[in-house]
């Protein structure tokens, strides 16, 4: 065969393989991807400029529905991001800490306690919860380490190439177009407006009365699940080893008899964490003192709505500055501009949710094109607490 023919054939084959690979990557990234607020949040974290964050929050929905980074910046001047995912596992929390060490060097890492407070360790192997976080992490040694240690051999490819798992999503179009558009616009814009915050516009009317008023007096402790306790200690060892400034928090909940044991486990966790020399803010126990109104500030028993989130954010942000003595890195001019946009969007989102709740409409509000398109009608001015 002539050399020229050989070259032509090689180029044609390479071109075909390249087009197929690019097509698969595009499908995997935008079209056949389980895009939801979790993926937009986790992906948004990696778009943050290196060393641009003063605080990074880790946890489950308990934190991304409670803390508003835009509000914290407006009130206290520190930048933050919620590297959180729905029902994140304890392994997910540790991987998130490692990812923060790899990608950012924030002055403080805040870990919400939820992942360690379950009565059993079932959440650790809940496929959906594991996928929701790990699918959205980019390739890194930390992700590979998790896969190697915890994923069954026959499922490993799915974590490396999520298209294997999600290619069947084509049946869910056109309903998923808006999530695809959200993903695409986030990538084009290059940063997340709400920095991971997500909420539902609804006021929870609990059938059983909340026990929140009783919690400041609650000092009882209940053992953690042994597996989760081991994971917690493992995490604390890692944080010590890396000399990280870490703060543990427990966000307020609408506590009832049914969920009361979690409060006791939280107390136990606080003891363990303090043994390692770290602070643990049991804000769940202090909900009433923070001013959380259990008739108005929750959208369900596990999550606060924007009214509660605003109060909690103000409370926690102030404590972070005063008690954790966070040193804020000055931002560059461009970054300051971006953060003003974050503040505006957060305030607009608050008013949007307020409007919906006043009208009695129930709606999720997050970093997607539908929510963002609705915010334009609302003012971005500072929110005055009611």
């Amino acid at each position, binding site marked *: 065969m002539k050399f020229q023919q050989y070259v032509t054939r090689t180029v044609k084959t390479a071109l075909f393989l390249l087009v197929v690979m690019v097509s698969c990557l595009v499908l995997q990234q935008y079209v056949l991807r389980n895009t939801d607020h979790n993926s937009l949040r986790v992906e948004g974290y990696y778009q943050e400029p290196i060393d641009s964050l003063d605080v990074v929050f880790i946890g489950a929905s308990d934190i991304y529905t409670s803390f508003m980074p835009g509000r914290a910046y407006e009130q206290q001047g520190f930048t933050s991001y919620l590297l959180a995912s729905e029902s994140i596992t304890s392994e997910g929390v540790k991987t998130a800490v490692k990812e923060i060490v790899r990608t950012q060097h924030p002055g403080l890492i805040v870990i919400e306690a939820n992942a360690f407070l379950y009565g059993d360790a079932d959440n650790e192997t809940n496929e959906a919860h594991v996928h929701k976080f790990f699918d959205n992490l980019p390739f890194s040694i930390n992700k590979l380490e998790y896969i190697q240690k915890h994923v069954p051999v026959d499922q490993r490819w799915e974590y490396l190439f999520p298209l294997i798992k999600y290619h069947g999503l*084509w049946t869910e179009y056109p309903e998923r177009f808006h999530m695809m558009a959200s993903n695409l616009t986030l990538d084009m814009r290059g940063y997340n407006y709400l920095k991971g915050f997500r909420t539902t516009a609804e006021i929870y009317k609990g059938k059983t009365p909340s026990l929140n008023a009783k919690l400041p007096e609650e000092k009882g402790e209940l053992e953690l699940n042994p597996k989760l306790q081991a994971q917690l200690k493992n995490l604390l060892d890692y944080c010590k080893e890396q000399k990280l400034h870490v703060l543990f928090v427990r966000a307020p909940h609408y506590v009832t008899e049914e969920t009361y044991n979690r409060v006791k486990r939280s107390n136990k966790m606080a003891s363990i964490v303090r043994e390692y020399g770290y602070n643990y803010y049991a804000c769940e126990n202090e909900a009433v003192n923070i001013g959380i109104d259990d008739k108005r500030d929750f959208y369900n028993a596990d999550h606060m709505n924007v009214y509660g989130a605003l109060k909690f954010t103000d409370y926690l942000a102030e404590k972070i500055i005063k008690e954790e003595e966070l040193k804020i890195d000055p931002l560059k001019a461009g970054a300051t501009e971006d953060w003003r946009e974050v503040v505006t969007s957060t305030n607009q989102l608050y008013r949007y949710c307020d409007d919906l709740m006043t009208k009695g409409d129930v709606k999720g509000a997050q970093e997607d094109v539908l929510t963002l398109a609705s915010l334009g009608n609302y003012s971005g001015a500072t929110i005055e607490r009611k």
Partner: protein
Amino acid sequence: MLFNMTYTTLNFLFFVLATMLVYFLFPVKKYKWTVLLAASVFFYIVCGYKYAFYILFTSLSTYLIALWIERVADKSKKLLKEKKKEWDRDRKKNYKNKIKVQKRLIMTLALLINFGILAFLKYYNFFAGSLNDVLGGFGIVFSAPTLNLVLPLGISFYTFQSMGYIVDVYREKTPAQRNPFKLLLFVSFFPQIIQGPISIYDQLAHQLFEPHEFDFTRMKHGMELILWGFFKKLVIADRASVLISAVEKDYAQYNGTALTFTILLYALQLYADFSGGIDISRGVAQIFGIDMIDNFKRPYFSRSINEYWRRWHISLGGWLKNYLFYPVAMSNVFINAGKKMKGTRFGKTAAGAHIAKVLPTSVASLIVFLVVGIWHGADWKYVAFGVWNGVIIMLSIILQPLFDGAVDKLHIKRTNPFFIGFQIFRTLLVILVGYVFDVAPSFAEGMRTLTEFFTAQNIPQAFEQLSKIPLIAHDYVVIALGGVVILIASLIQERHQDTDIRHMLDKKSFATRFLLLYIGVMAVVIFGIYGSGYNAADFVYMQF
């Protein structure tokens, strides 16, 4: 199983890629075949290391017995040469017969041992259960114990292939392999171990041992065949099998219409699954420069059930023809029976003479199809499936003059497209009736289905019943479109009998080839059923 290494997994594809690299870069040409052997052994160990003993035993016994047969033959030939002048004709004939019996005994030993293992592992529980039922029917309390037996990977395929080799050595069609490792490669060659095709030693072995160089065109064709196999298996068969498995599970719940639809879909699923798997096997082998026998030749275009079995699972049909049909049909018992019938009064009539002539063939066919039925599985429904096909073939052979006469009398041209269409449709109906026994959980349920085809047709009820199966409208559209693609490809192949579609594709422009292959790859990637799957229910917004 250490890893999931089925042909449609990424594990398998990477395994093939690694084997390919080692094979083509292997420096010693003479020993390139050892790479294939190592890969085959690795594949078998990974897939079912617990049962590797069985394949090793079959390979070793086949190797030793083939050498034994050949040694007896060589020794006898040598002696006959030495005694050429000493021995008279009768003595030579007697000696030859003695040797023939001796060789046959040795061959029978191999067949008994290896088919014995297969029969025991695959059919013991079936026979024990049937025996208990029969004796129970006569009021005899007897309970043959059932055993927890697991079938070693590919046992039917490698046993048939090895025993074909033994018979070929016995018939002196092929010399016995002197290298046990080469024989092990022939028995265990990884692309064919799971589902065939059942290769003939003469056709496959020399290709395995030849040192093949990398050939771009061959690799491209191999990849194209693998892609086609993936399309048939992952896009169509595995999707359709969701419905078929669901129906099989609650068979009694479905009415005649739902079962009719299921049987039709089963015909497509079975073809797509089996031929798709074979295409992957052949494609992988082709990359290594090895051409394996094509196991399917558009079987649903057959104009008779006889033709269908020449186009469906060709390697099994060929094996049974060579090693079972001919020995039975040509045996003295059958030939004498035919001759005897010819001598009777009935045999003197035209019909009688015809029946006497075709009797050995038709009875041998019935026996062959009984074996085909049993080969498919250990259940009476498979026996019924085999008997049904055997009886139809037997009748078609016996009644052939009647059909021919009717066609002539009606002045129907055999090339008339409507007549051909009628023949294809008629054959398809016969095949579908056979499939009823494949899908039905038991022989009795199969019979019920056949009755309900005529008595329990209710379309709205069938819609309601089938709507509970976890397939959505999108899936039916994909199956239908996939079926159309197979139909178009089959029509093209029928029209250009000797031309491979891949060769036709080679003649197209780069843009056309690029587009078609791109569509093929993306269709498999998007519409294929693979991976653990996304269950929307698991991912719903649980806490909100």
